[in-house]
C-alpha cells in the first residue's frame, strides 16, 4: 500500500471522526431537556461543565473518579451486578479491542517502543493477535446471542447493524490476510529478495523446504513428503536471514489452521494479488469504522464512560441547572439500550396490562430524545397516529412512580429519575400535562358540551361495565337520598371555601347527576379531580353508597372519554 494513500485515508478518517465527535458532543450543550434547561445558554453550560470537571479533578473527589474509572469503566462493575452474560461480552470486546488497537494497529507507537525487537511475526505476538481477535469475536457473538434470546430480531437503527457488520469484516479480513500471508509463496519470495538477495527457487530450495514444513508456506512443488534433511540444510540461511523476525506461526491458532485450509487456493490467490487487496480491505474497513463511529450508536463508547464518571462526581440534584442540563443531554448518547432499566421498572406490569410500553424507561428515554429534538409533539398537519404516540408517551411519563429503581440499576450511571422529572415538565409546558392538570383547562360544562355532538362517542348512560362497574349499575347510586352527609364530611369541600381553588360540584351533586343519567356533566368537574380519596364520604354514607370508588371510576372514564375529544381545537 502506498504510504501516501494510507496517510491520506488515515488523515481523512481521523478528521471525520474528530468532526463527528465534536458535532455529537456539542449536543450535550445544545439540547434542552426540562424547563430549567431553558434558562441557561449553551456557553453557560460549557462553562459549568468545565468548572465542574476542574473542581472534581482537583479535589478529594478525584480519588472517587479514579475508583469509578477502574471499577465502573474498565471492569464494568454495574453491568456485572445485573447481567453476567452481557458483562462478559462487553469485557471481552473492550479488552480485545483495546489490546488489538494498542499492540497491533498502533504498533509503531506502542509495541515497537515498549518491546524492542517487536515484530508482528514473532512469538508471542502471533498468538496474542489471534487471542485478542478471538476475544473480540466471542464478545460480539455473545451480544448477538443475547439479542436473539431477548427476541430482538431487528435492529432499531440500520447504522448499528452496519457498524457491527463492519467490525466483523475487519476481524475476518484480518484473519484471512494473516492466513494468506503465512501460506503465500509470493510473500516468501518478496522477503527472500529483500533479505537474501535472491528469489531463485532452486537455490532457495532447502530454505523453502524448511518454510514449507515449519512455517506453512504452500509451495506448489513442496506439498507432500518433504525430506527433513533438505529442510535441515536450510537452517543456517534461515538463522542468518529470517529467524530474527520469524517464529513458527502455529501459535497463531486461528490464522494458521486457516492458512492450511487455504493452501490449495494459495496459487490462485497469489496470482490475484490477494495479499494486497485483503490489506486494502482490512485497513480501509478500519478507517471507515473510525470515521463512522461518532455517527452510530456506538458513540456510546465515548459517552457512556463520561456518564459513569459524571455520576461518580455526585447526584444531579447537587449540580447547577447548567450542569444538570448538560448531563441530561449526555444521557441520550450514553444510553446503550441494554434494557436493564426496563427489567427493573416497577410499573413494568402496568405497562403490560395497559398495553403501553411508553411506561418503560428505555421508551421514555427515546420519547425524551424525540421531545428534545422536536419530533414528539404533533404539528398542525400530523394525523391521529402522531397524536396517539404523543399522548401515550405522556401517559407513560405521568404513570411513573419515581421509585428510582431504573436509576440505581443503570450500568452507565444515568440519573433517569432526574430525566423523568425534566421530561414531565417539558410535556406539561407543551400542553401534555397529567390528566388531573389537563382537565382543569375547561370547566365541567365545557367538557360535557365537547362530548355532545359525537355520534361515535359512547353515551354516558352506558359506560363500559368492565371499566366502571359502579357507574354502569344504577343500583350502586340510586339509593342516594341527597342527605348531604358526604358533602359535610368531605375535607376538600371544607377547604374549598375561597374562590381561588373552589370546587364546582359537591359529592352529593355528583351522585345526583349520575341518578339523572347526566354523568357527562361530572367527568371534568373539580370535585371528581380534586377528590383526595380519603374515603370519608364512603365511610359515612348512611345508604352505603361507595361514593369514593365511584369518583375514582369517573376519573378513569374521564381519561378515556375526555381524552378522545381533547385534541379538538388544540392540545388542551
Amino acid at each position, binding site marked *: 500500500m502506498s504510504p501516501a494513500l494510507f496517510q491520506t485515508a488515515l488523515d481523512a478518517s481521523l478528521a471525520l471522526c474528530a468532526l463527528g465527535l465534536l458535532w455529537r458532543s456539542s449536543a450535550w450543550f445544545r439540547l434542552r431537556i426540562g424547563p430549567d434547561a431553558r434558562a441557561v445558554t449553551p456557553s453557560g453550560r460549557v462553562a459549568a461543565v468545565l468548572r465542574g470537571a476542574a473542581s472534581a479533578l482537583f479535589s478529594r473527589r478525584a480519588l472517587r473518579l479514579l475508583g469509578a474509572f477502574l471499577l465502573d469503566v474498565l471492569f464494568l462493575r454495574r453491568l456485572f451486578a445485573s447481567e453476567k452474560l452481557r458483562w462478559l461480552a462487553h469485557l471481552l470486546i473492550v479488552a480485545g479491542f483495546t489490546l488489538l488497537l494498542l499492540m497491533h494497529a498502533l504498533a509503531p507507537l506502542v509495541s515497537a517502543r515498549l518491546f524492542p525487537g517487536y515484530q508482528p511475526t514473532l512469538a508471542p505476538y502471533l498468538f496474542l493477535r489471534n487471542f485478542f481477535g478471538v476475544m473480540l469475536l466471542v464478545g460480539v457473538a455473545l451480544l448477538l446471542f443475547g439479542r436473539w434470546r431477548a427476541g430482538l430480531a431487528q435492529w432499531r437503527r440500520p447504522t448499528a447493524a452496519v457498524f457491527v457488520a463492519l467490525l466483523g469484516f475487519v476481524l475476518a479480513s484480518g484473519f484471512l490476510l494473516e492466513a494468506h500471508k503465512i501460506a503465500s509463496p509470493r510473500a516468501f519470495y518478496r522477503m527472500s529478495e529483500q533479505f537474501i538477495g535472491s528469489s531463485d527457487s532452486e537455490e532457495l530450495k532447502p530454505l523453502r523446504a524448511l518454510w514449507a514444513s515449519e512455517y506453512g508456506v504452500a509451495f506448489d512443488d513442496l506439498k507432500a513428503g518433504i525430506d527433513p534433511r533438505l529442510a535441515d540444510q536450510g537452517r543456517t540461511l534461515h538463522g542468518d536471514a529470517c529467524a530474527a523476525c520469524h517464529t513458527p506461526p502455529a501459535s497463531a491458532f486461528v490464522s494458521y489452521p486457516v492458512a492450511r485450509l487455504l493452501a490449495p487456493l494459495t496459487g490462485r490467490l497469489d496470482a490475484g494479488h490477494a495479499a494486497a487487496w485483503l490489506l486494502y480491505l482490512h485497513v480501509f474497513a478500519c478507517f471507515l469504522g473510525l470515521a463512522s463511529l461518532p455517527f452510530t450508536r456506538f458513540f456510546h463508547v465515548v459517552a457512556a464512560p463520561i456518564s459513569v464518571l459524571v455520576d461518580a462526581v455526585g447526584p444531579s440534584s447537587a449540580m447547577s441547572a447548567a450542569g444538570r442540563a448538560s448531563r441530561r443531554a449526555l444521557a441520550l448518547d450514553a444510553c446503550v439500550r441494554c434494557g436493564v432499566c426496563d427489567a427493573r421498572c*416497577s410499573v413494568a406490569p402496568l405497562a403490560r396490562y395497559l398495553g403501553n410500553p411508553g411506561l418503560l424507561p428505555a421508551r421514555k428515554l427515546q420519547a425524551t430524545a424525540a421531545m428534545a429534538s422536536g419530533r414528539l409533539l404533533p404539528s398542525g398537519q400530523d394525523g391521529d397516529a402522531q397524536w396517539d404516540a404523543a399522548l401515550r408517551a405522556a401517559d407513560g411519563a405521568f404513570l411513573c412512580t419515581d421509585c428510582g429503581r431504573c436509576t440505581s440499576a443503570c450500568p452507565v450511571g444515568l440519573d433517569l429519575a432526574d430525566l423523568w422529572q425534566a421530561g414531565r415538565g417539558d410535556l406539561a409546558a407543551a400542553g401534555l400535562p397529567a390528566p388531573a392538570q389537563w382537565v382543569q383547562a375547561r370547566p365541567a360544562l365545557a367538557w360535557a358540551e365537547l362530548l355532545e355532538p359525537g355520534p361515535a362517542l359512547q353515551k354516558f348512560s352506558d359506560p363500559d361495565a368492565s371499566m*366502571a362497574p359502579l357507574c354502569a349499575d344504577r343500583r350502586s347510586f340510586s339509593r342516594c337520598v341527597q342527605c348531604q352527609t358526604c358533602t359535610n364530611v368531605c375535607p376538600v369541600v371544607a377547604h374549598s371555601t375561597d374562590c381561588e381553588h373552589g370546587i364546582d360540584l359537591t359529592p352529593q351533586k355528583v351522585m345526583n347527576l349520575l341518578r339523572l343519567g347526566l354523568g357527562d356533566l361530572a367527568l371534568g368537574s373539580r370535585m371528581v379531580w380534586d377528590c383526595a380519596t380519603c374515603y370519608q364520604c364512603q365511610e359515612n354514607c348512611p345508604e352505603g353508597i361507595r361514593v369514593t370508588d365511584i369518583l375514582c371510576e369517573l376519573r378513569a372514564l374521564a381519561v378515556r372519554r375526555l381524552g378522545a375529544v381533547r385534541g379538538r381545537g388544540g392540545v388542551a
Partner: protein
Amino acid sequence: MRYALFLGCKIPSQLPAYAVSTRAVLAQLGVTLIDLAFDCCGYPARNVSRDAFVLAAIRNLALAERAGLDVLTPCTCCFGTLRHAIRFQGEDAALGARVASALAEEGLAWSGKTEVEHLLPLLSRKVGVGALAAAVRAPRTGLRVAAQYGCHALRPSNIARFDNPTAPTMFEALIRATGATPVDWPRRLDCCGDPLHQANAPLSEDLTRAKIDDALESGAEAICTACPHCHLRFTAVESGGTDPALRTLLYTQLLGLAMGLPAASLGL
C-alpha cells in the same frame, strides 16, 4: 412470624429511613422479613384502568403466595390499594377471570390466601402492645405525640379492618407503649393532603397546614406517622413553613429509640 416486606415505590427512593427503621425494630421483635421482587402496588393506574390496577396489585400477592408468605407493608397507601384490589376482583367474577389468565401467562396464580397486613396492626395485635412495652429500654417519657393514622388505614373500614374508623385507639396505644404521651387532636383522622399534591398543590397544602396547626395547638411536639406519603407531605410543608416546632417522626423511629436502638440504625 415471617412476612414478605412490601415497601412500595416511595419508601426505597424517598424515605429509606422508614425501611431501615422497620427492619431494625422488627428484627428485635422476632418478625422475619423476606424481600421479594415486588413491583408497583397498582395505585397510579387507578385513575386510568381498573383492570390494570387490580392486575398489578394481585400480581404482587401471587408473588407472595408463590413464596408461601403473607404481605406486610409499612405504606398505608399500598395497604389500601392491595386490599381494594382483593375486594374488586372478589366481587367481579369476570375481572377475576381476566386476572387469573393474565397471571397464568407468567406462570403465576393467586388463590386468595395471602393476607395483607399493615405495620401498625401487626405491632398492635400480632406482636402485642405488652410485648412492645416490655421491649422498651429508654421510654420517651414526656414527649407529646400526635398520631397520624392515614386515611387508607382506617377507611373504608370494611376493607381496611384496621380499627374503629370514627374512634380509633390503636395508634395512641402504640405511642403509649413507648412511654410517650399521645395528644388528642381534632384533625387526627383527616387527610394529610398528599393525594392532591400533584393535582391541586394549594389545596393540598391547605389540608396539610391545617393538620400541622391543629397538632401544634393541641400541644403536640411531634406528628407520628406510619405512611411514607403522610410523612413526606408533613416534612415538605413543615420545612417550607415558618414553624419547625413540630417534628415528623416515623413510628418505627419512635419505637426504636424507646427500645434503646442507636439512632443511626433507625435512619435518624
